[in-house]
């Protein structure tokens, strides 16, 4: 039967295969492209609550004395992270446009040096684009020796363009253990015999 298919049919098949494979490769690439696309989309719109990197202040912003916004602070520990971690101030009332400094307290109660990384998340997500951090302990990893504690600063400005209906912002940090051994224990976990929660 194959021999009855005209030469032209064979060429057509090759074209279909070529186009389909191009589609397959393209969609696979698209799947991976979704990762940076997602990040860019979120950065532009701020919709996943991830506040951006360091904010470069331009000319001094106008401070809107007539408006007050409450900024609340939350601290959580990642799984297995044994540090004490809490905001020094639970919340502050700020005027949009003014630079405000608050602190977070962290302490390492263990008997060995550790490294922590704080990851921020802001709610409501429409506020993310209007929350600017000029200085944040989340920009860097935080090493602490055994028993050491520290007060870490956060300096931020709420943009005066913040939509009117938003009167409260909640900034939450989750502190993760950046111990390289613990992180790549994904592979250790695969090999270990006494690990996961679901065994």
């Amino acid at each position, binding site marked *: *039967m*194959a*021999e*009855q*298919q005209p030469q032209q*049919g064979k060429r*057509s*098949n090759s074209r*279909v*295969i070529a186009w*389909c*494979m191009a*589609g*397959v*490769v*393209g*969609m*696979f690439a*698209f*799947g*991976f492209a*979704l*990762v940076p696309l*997602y990040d860019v989309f979120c950065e532009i*719109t701020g*919709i*996943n609550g*991830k506040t951006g990197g360091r904010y470069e202040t331009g000319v001094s912003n106008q401070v809107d004395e007539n408006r007050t916004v409450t900024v609340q602070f939350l601290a959580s520990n*990642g799984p297995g992270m044994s540090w004490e971690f809490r905001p020094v101030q639970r919340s502050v009332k700020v005027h949009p446009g003014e630079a405000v400094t608050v602190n977070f307290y962290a302490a390492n109660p263990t008997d060995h040096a550790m490294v922590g*990384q704080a*990851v921020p998340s802001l709610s409501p*997500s*429409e506020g993310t684009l209007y929350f600017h951090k000029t200085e944040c302990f989340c920009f860097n990893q935080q090493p602490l020796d055994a028993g050491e504690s520290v007060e870490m600063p956060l300096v931020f400005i709420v943009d005066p363009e913040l939509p009117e209906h938003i009167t409260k912002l909640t900034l939450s940090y*989750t502190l*993760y253990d*950046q111990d390289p051994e613990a*992180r*790549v224990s*994904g*592979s250790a*976990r*695969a*090999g270990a*015999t006494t690990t*996961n*929660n*679901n*065994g």
Partner: protein
Amino acid sequence: MSAVADTHSQEHHHGPAKGISRWLLTTNHKDIGSMYLIFSFAMFLLGGSMAMVIRAELFQPGLQIVQPEFFNQMTTMHGLIMVFGAVMPAFVGLANWMLPLMIGAPDMALPRMNNWSFWLLPCAFLILVSTLFMEGGAPNFGWTFYAPLSTTYGPPSTTFFIFAIHIMGVSSIMGAINVIATILNMRAPGMKMMKMPLFVWTWLITAFLLIAVMPVLAGAVTMMLMDINFGTSFFDASGGGDPVLFQHVFWFFGHPEVYIMILPAFGAISHIVPAFSRKPLFGYASMVYAVGAIALLSFLVWAHHMFTVGIPLAGQLFFMYATLLIAVPTGVKVFNWVTTMFRGSLSFEAPMLFAVAFIILFTIGGFSGLMLAIAPADFQYHDTYFVVAHFHYVLVPGAIFGIFASAYFWLPKWTGHMYDETLAKTHFWLSFIGMNLAFFPMHFLGLAGMPRRIPDYALQFSDFNMVSSIGAFMFGVTQLLFLFIVVKCVRGGEKAAAKPWDGAEGLEWTVPSPAPYHTFSTPPEVK
């Protein structure tokens, strides 16, 4: 199935080879179609047994039979096996058997790749099922395998699960390429696109969906693999990643996937209803456009699976509107089937019984889908048994009954014998009753507040759970009757004519029953 050589052939065809090498090496679309169908039925029984374990545990409150860890493995594997091992391969089997016959082609465009596409499946499922016996057990994170439950907290077998998905995905993609090449290049002269039978149309569109989204699934599981084994953080907040990203990528695949699982059934029903109504399909053109519209829209609705995740209001509204929109072309199809029946001359052999049940019960599944689309209401339905009811209605009386209807419709063509009509009607009624007893109460359970994926429940959910389990056992046992019917039909029965159904139309009914090993070596003329 048929060992009869094509007596019209002028070449030196020997007919099929003998023994095991026939099946290992065949490039014949009928053989491959049969293998797909047998494989899918075996997976259906395997996935079904897991459902029996689930329903046995849920028969009463309390933990009686299995521990929660194993229960989670059962729900996960039941879903994976049914979606990827039963429903999809069954439709590919039907495509293999019927597409060349319907378009007057001698075989699929790429017969050797066809053989590969099939044999990859038993390999993939051997790997997947073997995870049950690995340390830490099988995947236990739901067939939707959300991160980080599946990445950071998954069992060691997760990597094998990913491997199995990759292999199965390659099989699907190769099959889709084959279908597209066959339909575009091998139609008999005179068969223009808008003259193609509906089953051919729905498979063409399904194949495009497969090409578009199976690679995205491959991407998602590859990212999982990298997070688990290579220290990346696609879905891990501690490394700057986002678990919600997983859901976006997964459902971008997942939503078109559910249409992949139903469009071929739409096509088959569009053959069966006109045949048993002895009346042409109403609105052929709009049926084609509706399938195209459904396929296109299916790419725009994925986040309706994520209404409670915390996506912003604008996104929520967009996905709600787009999802509501899909109801329109789907409704058009239902109206067209009903209008085909209206003022027809109806008879209710087994294929038609399943087809009518499909129309009614799939539509009920569609109604619960419409309710789920109302985003604020979905906050109450999401992750409850209401969702379980919805997708079992569209998949069981939807896809599965569509497959049963097709099997009964085309068994005479495949085997040369009529199946036992009384037994088949029994299979239908027991399945119909069992299925409704099993799944209709789940609507109530969900509305009353029962979440999904739990091995034990509060006392107010007891009664409907018991009814549901009884229905499920009934439905499950009945499928053994189907096995008996098929085996009996293969082995003998009343001789079937080339066209055993007087209302049927199409090239497939012009070849003898059983269809000779080689058909349409010379393409027919289509007026």
